[in-house]
């Protein structure tokens, strides 16, 4: 879009729309982007991020990340910190796919070890990890156990043999949001989700084999410290969320909030998808407890998928996953609201931070980080399109201005329908094979929708994140194999 005169650059890579831009804004809106990314953003992003700035209790400003694009209520990439006493919680600020997130697993294997077995490996992963629509999960749990899993997240999985104790330390929040309360979840949500633990899903969700190349290591010292610093090394990335369970939690509470927000709390919003309730109210607290269950379901989903991933590698390479060095590097969440204590205008303050299609990126020294990451800052996993590449970044001290939040992916620029008209799944698979990427997809039409050309350039997004001081690149990964729903 043509740059509106209302937008001005407040610092390198940070743009501001003032609070008098439209009526009802309580704070300014800020967008982290390069000029080129900003110019490429849809009109809807500006509309939505300024709508976010109207929400009661918002602190400082509404932020949008460099990969921001049009969403429901909040834009994807929208971030809002709320005062927990005066402010609201909004399901539209979290998204339908609660705790959609990324997990990165390292290996000691090199491209030379993997190449001769790549097809077998990818095909076997496709067989063993349910992907696509209508698939039943690796775990099918009776209600009681499913509810336990909702309250304990990845911890439940490790206790039941799906993973290693140290996996939990390397998962955001230790793989469990303690505020979860399964009694706040509807019967329907349980019925939708209890057979989906250990499913990838569809859309932009995937499992990818990637390789480290010498020329893509930006910070060799940190990359080595994190176990991903060897040229030729193969790593694995998993992108998926809380599946139908989380979607139902979001739909249930969106419906409830629409009914009660005006009547009980005197709240009015300019977009139905921004329906909200005071965080401190019964409805706000109930949603937060149910949302935390969905966060935990997603942690568990990725944990169980990783467990299966390790089993498949052990089977194909005839060595245990431990001997293959298959440690979890980190697991990050995208669509969440969390209570955090941050220094704002020089004072420690409790905030309820909504991150929608955005990643927490704590700086070096943050007490929430496990010892191994406390010096370097939090690992941030950025998934690119399946044709181009992905990144591992680190949180930085200067990220305070976005409440320590950075981008989450490359961000879609072309509609699914247009992508399907422009790309053919079978041709795409062939051209990717020519570039050394082997894909096994549940559906060729779904594959076409995820073509690299439908996304923003991941390098531009990461450069914008660096420039605006919200995270810094450590290493870039190149895809070699992909399992897609």
């Amino acid at each position, binding site marked *: 879009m043509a740059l509106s005169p209302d937008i001005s650059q407040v610092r390198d890579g940070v743009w501001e729309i003032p609070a008098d831009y439209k009526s009802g804004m309580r704070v300014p809106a800020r967008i982290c982007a390069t000029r080129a990314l900003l110019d490429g953003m849809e009109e809807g992003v500006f509309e939505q991020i300024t709508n976010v700035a109207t929400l009661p209790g918002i602190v400082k400003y509404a932020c949008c990340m460099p990969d921001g694009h049009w969403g429901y209520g909040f834009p994807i990439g929208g971030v809002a910190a709320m005062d927990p006493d005066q402010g609201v919680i909004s399901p539209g600020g979290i998204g339908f796919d609660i705790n959609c997130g990324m997990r990165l697993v390292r290996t000691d294997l090199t491209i030379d070890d993997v190449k001769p077995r790549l097809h077998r490996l990818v095909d076997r992963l496709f067989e063993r990890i349910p992907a696509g629509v209508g*698939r039943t999960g690796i775990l099918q749990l009776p209600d009681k156990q499913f509810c336990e899993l909702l309250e304990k997240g990845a911890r439940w999985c490790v206790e039941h043999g799906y993973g290693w104790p140290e996996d939990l330390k390397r998962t955001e929040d230790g793989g469990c949001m303690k505020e979860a309360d399964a009694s706040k979840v509807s019967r329907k949500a349980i019925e939708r989700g209890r057979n989906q633990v250990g499913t990838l899903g*569809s859309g932009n969700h995937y499992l990818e084999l990637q390789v480290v190349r010498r020329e893509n290591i930006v910070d060799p010292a940190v990359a080595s410290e994190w176990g991903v610093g060897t040229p030729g090394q193969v790593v694995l990335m998993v992108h998926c969320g809380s599946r139908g369970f989380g979607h139902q939690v979001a*739909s249930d509470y969106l419906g409830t909030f629409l009914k009660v927000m005006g009547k009980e709390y005197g709240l009015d919003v300019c977009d139905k998808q921004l329906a909200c309730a005071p965080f401190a109210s019964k409805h706000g607290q109930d949603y937060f407890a149910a949302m935390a269950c969905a966060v935990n379901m997603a942690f568990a989903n990725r944990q169980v998928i990783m467990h299966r991933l390790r089993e498949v590698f052990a089977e194909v390479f005839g060595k245990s996953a431990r001997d293959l060095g298959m440690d979890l590097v980190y697991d990050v969440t995208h669509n969440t609201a969390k209570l955090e204590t941050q220094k704002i205008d020089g004072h420690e303050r409790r905030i309820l931070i909504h991150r929608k299609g955005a990643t927490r990126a704590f700086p070096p020294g943050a007490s929430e980080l496990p010892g191994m990451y406390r010096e370097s800052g939090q690992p941030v996993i950025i998934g690119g399109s399946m044709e181009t590449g992905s990144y591992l970044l680190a949180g930085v001290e200067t990220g305070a201005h976005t409440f320590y939040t950075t981008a989450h992916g490359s961000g879609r620029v072309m509609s699914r329908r247009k992508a399907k008209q422009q790309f053919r799944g079978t041709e795409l698979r062939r051209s990717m094979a020519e570039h050394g990427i082997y894909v096994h997809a549940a559906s060729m039409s779904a594959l076409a929708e995820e073509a690299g050309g439908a996304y923003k350039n991941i390098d531009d997004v990461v450069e914008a994140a660096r420039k605006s001081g919200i995270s810094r690149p450590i290493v870039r990964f190149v895809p070699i194999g992909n399992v897609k729903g």
Partner: protein
Amino acid sequence: MPYEFLDNIATADVAFRAWGTTREALIEAAVDALLNATVTELDSVQSALIREITVEADTLEMVVHNFLEELVYLKDAEHLLLRVREASVQDTDEGVQCRAVLRGERIDVTRHDLVADVKAVTFHGFEVCQTSRGWEATVVLDV
């Protein structure tokens, strides 16, 4: 085909407009559009079983919304793909009610070309209105 997919509403998702001369026909069309967002060929869905659904809400708009959400739920909870066989929409003291008999079958990945896993029926740009051709709904699905 009394529905069309729309390009410029939802970059990352699926939007459609459905219409019918009656409220029943509108719901039938919207259900087919939702199904077509999930599976590429509607004809690949056989009539192996029957389901009855009743949805009641304050307005027709909410009836259409909640009816579609019910189908999204059944897709995940019971792996069902469904089309309307018979529907009746009536005004009640509380608002509007739709009772419908649906036919369809469980997902079979060997026969169904499944393209998108619909997550939710959103309220973004959601609209049900009366037009010169009857009733019309605009719906954005999160996929």
